[in-house]
């Protein structure tokens, strides 16, 4: 287990009286790409937000690189720098240019020379085909471009794991592919990633592991070949057929 990056043990989370996560167990290895699938309200987004410590969990453990980061009183700020998250609705800062969006957190947090940070940010923009969009404001960018900037923003903190929360769901179909390309690129680089996604085709093609969530529980966890061609759970089968029908 030396290369285990993240380990969730029996994670529980409820909003008021409504349980959302009812005992999640999951291990993510370095460089692994895990896809979370399941219908809306199955708990995928909540799980990602819990890992990023945006939501405190009620019970269980989140172990990141051997350390329990879910302990009460644990300072979430340093950990969040190492765990990047990208949201469905991009959440870019509308009053800043794309470059300023990307530079803000590194400049305030990383304590590295400005020139060096700027070079790194510029390199990221170039790498993901956004070099000519650096000085644009979010409302001057297409949805796909905004989402790519959001990814660059998270990557600029040099995270050790990236969480993607339905990052293509808000996009027009013709813009989805450019974002998925970025994800493929990250995968080739060996980034450790957890994706909540409805893109079954992409999960099938790129994921190492696919987890089927249903009512706050991972009911099936397998390789994509196994899960998509021969799921063992009837509810997985039901979900897949409903998704594929669309």
């Amino acid at each position, binding site marked *: 287990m030396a290369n285990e990056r993240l380990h969730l043990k029996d994670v529980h989370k409820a909003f008021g009286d409504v349980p959302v996560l009812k005992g999640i167990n999951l291990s993510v290895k370095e460089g692994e790409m895990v896809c979370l699938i399941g219908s809306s309200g199955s708990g995928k987004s909540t799980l990602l937000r819990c890992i990023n410590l945006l939501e405190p969990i009620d019970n269980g453990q989140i172990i990141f690189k051997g350390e329990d980061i879910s302990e009460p009183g644990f300072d979430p700020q*340093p950990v969040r720098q190492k765990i*990047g998250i990208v949201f469905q609705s991009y959440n870019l*800062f509308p009053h800043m240019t794309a470059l300023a969006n990307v530079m*803000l957190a590194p400049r305030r947090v990383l304590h590295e020379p400005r020139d060096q940070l700027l070079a790194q940010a510029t390199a990221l923009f170039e790498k993901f085909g956004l070099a000519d969009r650096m000085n644009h404001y979010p409302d001057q960018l297409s949805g796909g471009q905004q989402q790519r900037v959001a990814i660059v923003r998270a990557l600029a903190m040099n995270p050790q794991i990236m969480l993607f929360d339905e990052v293509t769901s808000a996009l027009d179909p013709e813009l989805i592919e450019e974002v998925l390309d970025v994800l493929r690129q990250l995968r080739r680089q060996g980034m450790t990633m957890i994706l909540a996604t409805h893109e079954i085709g992409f999960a099938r093609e790129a994921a190492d592991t696919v987890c089927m969530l249903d009512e706050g529980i991972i009911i099936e966890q397998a390789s994509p070949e196994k899960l998509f061609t021969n799921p063992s759970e009837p509810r997985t089968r039901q979900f897949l057929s409903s998704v594929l029908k669309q």
Partner: protein
Amino acid sequence: MINRSAARVAYDKQQKTKGAVIAALSSLVVLIALVVLVPRAPGWEKVQASFFDGEILVSTFPSLLKAFLVDIAIFLWSLPAIAILGLLVALARDQKSPAMFPLRALAIGYTDIFRGVPVILTIFLIGFGIPGLGLPRPWNSPYIWGSVALVLTYSAYVAEVLRSGIESIHESQRNAGKSLGLSSSDTMRFIVLPQALRRVVPANMNMLVALQKDVALLSFIGPVEILRQAGVHKSLLANFTPYVGAAIIFLAVTIPATRYADYLLAKQHRERS
């Protein structure tokens, strides 16, 4: 298709012209009614002599303008203090951790009290009361403590405006900041506040207009600003025309400011939709 849209354009244009004509006509009717009918009222001559005496207006206007400089000075030095205090109170109200409860409670109490108490009472209480505790000159000046009273009152209002602005920024923006590892103060400073401030500009413009008028209340504790100067003239001349002169000067400032605030508001609505 082209024909139809051309017809539409023509129709729109016609409607617009029609609207303008109706507006102009009805304005004219109202104006004529005012100009013709009001002077026919039996008491008009007396009212005109008391409120609209041209000679008095001309002779008192320069001294009113000079007194208005006092208003402007008080306004200008109160403004930065209101901005800073209002922001601090708004931030204090936004504190969510239990350790900050006393601060938050203090801020809530402050805004409740100073928004609830009539401005004039605050001005008397602070303008006379605090110097009455035994401050030496010049630190007991009514200019200082009257301004403090205005600052305390208006900061309470501005704090509420800012707080509404801060709360209008979607939680996802804060989350985005937090998720990048920014501290909550950095998140507030770089992400929430810049957006919130922009959003409350129109509301604060209205605050400025109100403040500009309330500066005149300082005359109750001594300073001879425009409204008091007008009052002096009124008292000596037994005529209200100097107040009309003061009103003209006020309107010359507040109408453009109000129009500008409306313009900003309309612009904001356009941008959001």
